[in-house]
Each structure stands twice: as structure tokens, then as C-alpha cells.
């Protein structure tokens, strides 16, 4: 490509800037790594025309600056933040100048202080919002709910594993005595599956699996997928945990049916 050498030099300059932010021991290796990618980007056959490759290469090189400025342990974190905070001040300065708000040097100083205080107030509000006001925004609420769901799912999984283990350990004993080991956690507040129904259903599954279908007809994996429970307002079993355990049993029943 025409001017390739020059482009590469620009890219290498940017990477050099980025590497300055890195701790000394990592600097040289990173520089070599990134510098080696530049010609590869310029030669990327998937990207056309050449100008787009050049732009991409430069974006790559300048992106590394952002990366190193924000990596923990990099030398210039504060500066990176300052660089991000600067544009509003510059805009304010230009507007002041154009509108002639500030006439004397004192005016400029006051404006500067005012802008700084305003900026601090904004950061303060943002921080407070992030900390306490999370439920305010709709998108944010959704994101938080999604996260909570993931966590609840992980918790349910862990609990289900515990319950299954306890049941497997004590399986034969409990079948004989007729009560369930490793019972489900109950929800104190809020709806949950009606405990008696879940217990009964699981007893039937276990009876099926152990080849002893006494409490009722044999259960199949499809029954487990289709089963529904009534919900109590308080004190029911935690739904996710029950679901996890039932999923496990459905798999087991499926395998058992193949074995038969």
C-alpha cells in the first residue's frame, strides 16, 4: 500500500504513547506485541478498501492508549480521568469567551472555580445515584434484575446440588423411613410452591427411580417437565431450587427409561 511505511510509523508512535503508561517491566513486550499486529491489520484481506484498513489500524493503535490508561497498575490513571473530564471545561471556556461573560481575570477564576464545583457536584450525584438510586432508571432496573436473576439461579443450582447429594447419601434410609432428606429451602416472604405437593411428587419420582412405584403410577421425564404446583403466599418451597432439582430428576428418568 502506498504510504504504508508512514502509516505504520504513526501507529507505532501511538503505541509508544500507550506503552508509556505501562509499568516498565511490561512495556517492551507490549510494544512488540502491538507493533507486530499493525502490519497484519494493514494486510487484512477481509477489510476493504485499503483506506478502511488504514483507519482500522490507527483506531487499533490509539485504542491501546485508552486500554493502558485504564488498566490497574498503569502509571497514569489520574491523567486519563482528567483527559476525559477536560472537554466540558474547554467548551465552557470557549462559550464564555464567545459570549463575553468573563471580562476580567477574576471573572475567569470565578468561572473556573464554579465549573469545578459544578463538575464535582455532578460526580457526587452520579456516585450517589450509582450507590443508592439504582432503582430509579428503567434500563438500570432491568440490568440489576437480570443480575439478581443470574445470582438467584446460581444459588438455586448450588442448593439443588446440595439437596440432591443429601438425598443420594440418605436415599435408601429415607425411602424406608418414609421422609425426605435434604428438604427444600422455604421462602419466608413471597410466593413458593406448596410444599406438600412438591414432596409428594418427588416421593413418586424417587419411587419410580428405585423401581417401587407404590405412591402412584410411574412418573416419566415428560411428567416432570409438565408438572405444575400450586403456589402459596408464604412459606412455600423456593421455586428455582425445586425447578433445578426437578430438571435433574427429569434427566435421570430419561436415562432410566433408556436403560429399561
Amino acid at each position, binding site marked *: 500500500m502506498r504510504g504504508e511505511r508512514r502509516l505504520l510509523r504513526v501507529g507505532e508512535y501511538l503505541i509508544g504513547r500507550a506503552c508509556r503508561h505501562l509499568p516498565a517491566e511490561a512495556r517492551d*513486550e*507490549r510494544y*512488540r*506485541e*502491538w*507493533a*507486530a*499486529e499493525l*502490519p*497484519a*491489520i494493514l494486510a*487484512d484481506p*477481509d477489510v476493504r478498501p485499503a483506506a478502511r484498513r488504514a483507519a482500522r489500524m490507527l*483506531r*487499533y*493503535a490509539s*485504542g*491501546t*492508549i*485508552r*486500554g*493502558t490508561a*485504564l*488498566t490497574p497498575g498503569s502509571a497514569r490513571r489520574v491523567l486519563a480521568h482528567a483527559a476525559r473530564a477536560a472537554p466540558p471545561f474547554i467548551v465552557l471556556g470557549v462559550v464564555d469567551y464567545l459570549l463575553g461573560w468573563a471580562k476580567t481575570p477574576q471573572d475567569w477564576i470565578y468561572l473556573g472555580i464554579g465549573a469545578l464545583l459544578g463538575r464535582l457536584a455532578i460526580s457526587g450525584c452520579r456516585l450517589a445515584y450509582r450507590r443508592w438510586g439504582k432503582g430509579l432508571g428503567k434500563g438500570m432496573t432491568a440490568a440489576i434484575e*437480570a443480575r439478581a*436473576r*443470574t445470582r438467584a*439461579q*446460581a444459588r438455586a*443450582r448450588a442448593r439443588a446440588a446440595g439437596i440432591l447429594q443429601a438425598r443420594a447419601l440418605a436415599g435408601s434410609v429415607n425411602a424406608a423411613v418414609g421422609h425426605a432428606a435434604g428438604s427444600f429451602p422455604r421462602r419466608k416472604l413471597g*410466593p413458593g*410452591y406448596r410444599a406438600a*405437593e412438591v414432596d*409428594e*411428587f418427588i416421593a*413418586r419420582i424417587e419411587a419410580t427411580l428405585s423401581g417401587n412405584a407404590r405412591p*402412584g*403410577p410411574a412418573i416419566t421425564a415428560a*411428567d416432570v417437565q*409438565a*408438572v*405444575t*404446583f*400450586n*403456589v402459596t403466599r408464604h412459606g412455600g418451597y423456593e*421455586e428455582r431450587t425445586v*425447578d433445578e432439582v*426437578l430438571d435433574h430428576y427429569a434427566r435421570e428418568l430419561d436415562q432410566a427409561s433408556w436403560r429399561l
Partner: protein
Amino acid sequence: MRMTAPLERVLRAFLADPVDPRYGYDLMKAAGLKSGTLYPLLSRLEDEKLVTSAWETPQQDGQRPRKYYRLTAKGAEVARLELAQVSAGRPRSRAHPARPLPGSLG
């Protein structure tokens, strides 16, 4: 390490072919991330021993050797688990009132 959207994308890119060594630029393309996002992630993954990197053997054509990354055995395992967890986290409902009692299923 907390699961974030960029991290998820990087792991997916790696898992597309877990044994294939990936260059930084390839990963950027595959994961759709900027260099400034990808490299810090890679170095964190490397710190946690989920990813290893190595230098390409120098070639005759005078090109500089590139550095490539790949998942470690532990990394591949962790990545699979984490991604499975992410997809499991999506909601799913089984329960709701006014359903037949399990006893009536026959």
C-alpha cells in the same frame, strides 16, 4: 473476575475453537471489541492463568513475530461453566397458580 458483556464475548470467541491460537487482532474481530477493551481483559485473564500467550516463531519474510493467545485447560473449563451459567440465568418459568395438582396427572 466479574462476568461482563465484553468478557463473555471474548470467552465465546475463544471457545469457538479452543485449541486454535488467536492473535489479538483476530480476537478483536471475532469478539467485536476495541483494542483498548480487549488487551486489559486478556492481561487479566492471563493473570488468572485462564489464558496463556506465546510468541510466534519468527518467519523469513522479515515480519515481526506476533503474540498469540489460547485458553488453558482450566480456562476452557471455567469459560464453559461461566457461559453456561450466563445462558441459564435467562428467565424461565414453570410455576403459576391455578394448575392441576400433581396427584391428578395420572
